[in-house]
């Protein structure tokens, strides 16, 4: 019996540890697209990142950074909201130097708790003024456009409306999905309130509820459901449909549709990088933030994750919807911190979450 257990363990261990390591000198896979050169030796610096962006897409960037600069990189992956809550719990004792958020909301939350540090002017100036905070506490590193994802069997672009306001039309009764509890939706709605006033925004959402809009928990589930035809259309970030098409090119029958350029429904929402106030690895943190905004990384974001580049003069991938209304990104995301709570309250009160 003991012998058997021993043998099983040895067998298992040899299986698990038996596979060979990769060449440490050069990167492979997606990371090599960002940096193809030889890895530099350690530079003695290290940086710890809490990343709300997922591993499959962001790790190549971090690997390239580690290889090219020789910085020691450690990461905690998780959802942006959970990580923001964790950072709040950890306060000044956190190990994190940098927090990467999928949407502005969690950043606003951390800012309201005074946990964010000041990013250097060198880094801030790499993006347009509207894409970093006035106080210098966060900097955008990629953009996602709000779009309407629709099922191609049920609708064609000609039959879709010019403005998000038209979705209250009886024509779309019971057809539209809204990710009411999703971070980037609430961010978008916060800007909506900021632009049109609370009354108009509340009225629009209530009309959507009256028009039998359906609640879905997040962008991903809407895009996936639209691809199957379970729902006809939904308000989402442009970015999810590309991933879904790449995963299921044959069966996924949904496309993105852009509202008019000047419509609030076409807002560009950014993903943000921040530095923690308690960080003791200031230099490495700045290095990383700057690295995210270099041309190879911005190129990677637009070609591989299908997001909008924000720096280094990189042109958006041709597959992305045109972004003539980039100035709509000039909406002051600084206001999101305070407005988030109000927006959540209106969403909750509208009753959409029970639909």
């Amino acid at each position, binding site marked *: 019996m003991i012998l058997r257990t021993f043998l099983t363990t040895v067998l298992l261990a040899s299986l698990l540890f038996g596979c060979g390591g990769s060449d440490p000198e050069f990167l492979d*896979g997606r990371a090599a697209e960002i940096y193809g050169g030889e890895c530099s030796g350690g530079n003695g610096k290290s940086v710890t990142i809490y990343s709300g962006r997922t591993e*499959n897409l962001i790790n190549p960037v971090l690997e390239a950074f580690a290889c090219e600069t020789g910085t020691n990189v450690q990461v905690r992956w998780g959802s942006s909201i959970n990580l923001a809550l*964790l950072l709040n719990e950890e*306060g000044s*004792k956190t190990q994190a130097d940098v927090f990467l958020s999928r949407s502005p909301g969690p950043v606003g939350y951390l800012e309201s708790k005074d946990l964010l540090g000041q990013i250097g002017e060198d880094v801030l100036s790499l993006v347009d003024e509207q894409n970093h905070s006035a106080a210098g506490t966060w900097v955008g590193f990629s953009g996602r456009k709000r779009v309407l994802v629709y099922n191609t069997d049920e609708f064609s672009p000609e039959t879709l409306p010019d403005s998000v306001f038209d979705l209250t039309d009886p024509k779309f009764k019971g057809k539209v999905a809204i990710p009411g509890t999703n971070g980037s939706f609430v961010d978008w709605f916060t800007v909506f309130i900021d632009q049109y006033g609370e009354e108009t925004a509340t009225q629009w959402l209530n009309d959507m509820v009256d028009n039998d809009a359906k609640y879905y928990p997040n962008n991903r589930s809407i895009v996936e459901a639209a691809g199957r035809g379970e729902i006809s259309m939904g308000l989402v970030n442009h970015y999810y449909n590309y991933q879904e098409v790449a995963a299921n090119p044959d069966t996924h029958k949904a496309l993105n549709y852009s509202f008019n350029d000047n419509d609030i429904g076409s807002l560009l929402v950014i993903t943000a990088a921040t530095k923690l106030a308690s960080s003791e690895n200031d230099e490495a943190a700045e290095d990383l933030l700057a690295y995210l905004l270099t041309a190879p990384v911005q190129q990677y974001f637009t070609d591989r994750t299908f997001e909008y580049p924000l720096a280094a003069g990189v042109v958006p991938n041709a597959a992305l919807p045109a972004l003539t209304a980039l100035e709509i990104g000039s909406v002051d995301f600084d206001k999101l911190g305070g407005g988030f709570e109000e927006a959540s309250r209106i969403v*909750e009160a509208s009753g959409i979450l029970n639909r």
Partner: protein
Amino acid sequence: MTQIEIKRGAPIGLRVVVFALAFLFSFPGIYLIWRNLTEDSDPISLIGTERILSPLWRSVSLALAVSASAAVIGTLLAWLTSRTDIYGCKVWKLLLPIPLVFPTFLGAAAFIRTMNPGGLLNRFFSTLGVDQTIEMRGFFGAWLVLTLFCYPYVYLPVAARFRQLPRSLEESSRVLGQTPIRTFRKIILPQAGPVIAAGTLIVFLYTISDFGAVQLMRYDTLTRSIFTAQLANQSVALALSLILLLLAGVIVLSERIFSRVTFKTDQALMGKPLEYELGKWKIPAFIFTIFVSLLSIGAPLLAIGDWASDGIFRSTVGGRPLTIDREQVWESAWNTLSISVIAGIAAVLAVLPVAYIVAKYKSRIGRFSHAVVISTFALPGLLIALAMRFWTLRTDWAFDLFNNTKALLVFSYVVRFGSLAMGVVLLAVAAVPQRLQDAGRTLGVQRGSRFFRIDLPLMTPGLGAAAGLVILSTMKELPITLLISPLGFSTLATRIFSSFEDAFVTEAGIMALVLVLISFFLTWFLIIRKADHF
């Protein structure tokens, strides 16, 4: 042969240990109370408002429905596989605990994507001319998915109990001409009642704490209210969480009152339990078991297998390349296996003293500790993770000792899942006949020595099953693993989550298959092999 039982006061050493354990298990509860005070939350004013009543009602009604169905299915399956001549008994024992290992977000997604319009099964049915399949959403969807993934919480301990029942009573009943069904109702059910109740309570609490499945099924519960309030209105989120915990505490305490009958048998060593012949029920019982396992294991496996094979095929013909390599899968698999086994053993060791004091002695501390361990299960994992972080950061020595260690991760798992081990451990402890103890004492064996030489060997199979429950649940755990683990530590579940988030369904599918394979191995090793010694 019932003997009069005199419960004595517990020895002081044991009481101290149990008290210390209760303190450790109450970290999340104390954290919630503390934060409610510091954030100026006002849980009392929330009670009775619409904000809490309607989601609370939806949570409770779902939990009641899921517990009822899981109790029936779990008990029936336990009976069929442990005491009857059902076809393929060994296979069922291996298969039936597996649903525990599917992360609920993955399971729910598998159902939605397979059954709903445009899904694999839905398309299959429409080619057969069946147009209407039931849509997976809302109360019904959440109920179905949670029932299918939670019945093992009842099935596993109840199966262990059925195997342990003395045959003498059943034989007498038979000799007296009672039908098997009557014997089941009159003799077996009353003896297994407390175990069924304990398992059902776990299902109830799990359903209340669940977020992954209810969210995807778009059924709006109290956990959803808590999660959305967290960033926007933290004091409300904290108040709601505290109310949730208190509610769980009340339910757990009242369950203890109803099942005061302890899990006692004095004839656990009477050899193999009676096996019943199903006769004309053989085919229906077989069909029922196949039906349940097709839904609870077959459907998710079909979806997962479809994702995995589809993507692997596509990557070989020049589609999107895979973003994981073999090394990563091995590393995560090894992490998953090792950390969950350690957590399983630690959880059993942690609840053992509590179970011991509850089963053997009359002790208020024992009852209190038991309630603390069980009711913590109603808290979503995220709150446990935040609470654990909070406590290690408040004391310098704990910070130096535990920060960024696997020890803290294991501790968090034990607090989260200790409740699962409790029921089965209690059963194992109570099954050690008092007369063996008495005999040992008469022969002058010391108390400690009696425990190791008499109790422990007899309890081993039960403890194995208890560890199994914790291990299978730990393997799929997500929020604690993400937030508490040392930097750079990944498990299969965290990689599945990360892949799934960005539609890398192939990668998620591959790793989910590995997860299922590991759990087959563990089920065989811990639950089946050991349990056959009952």
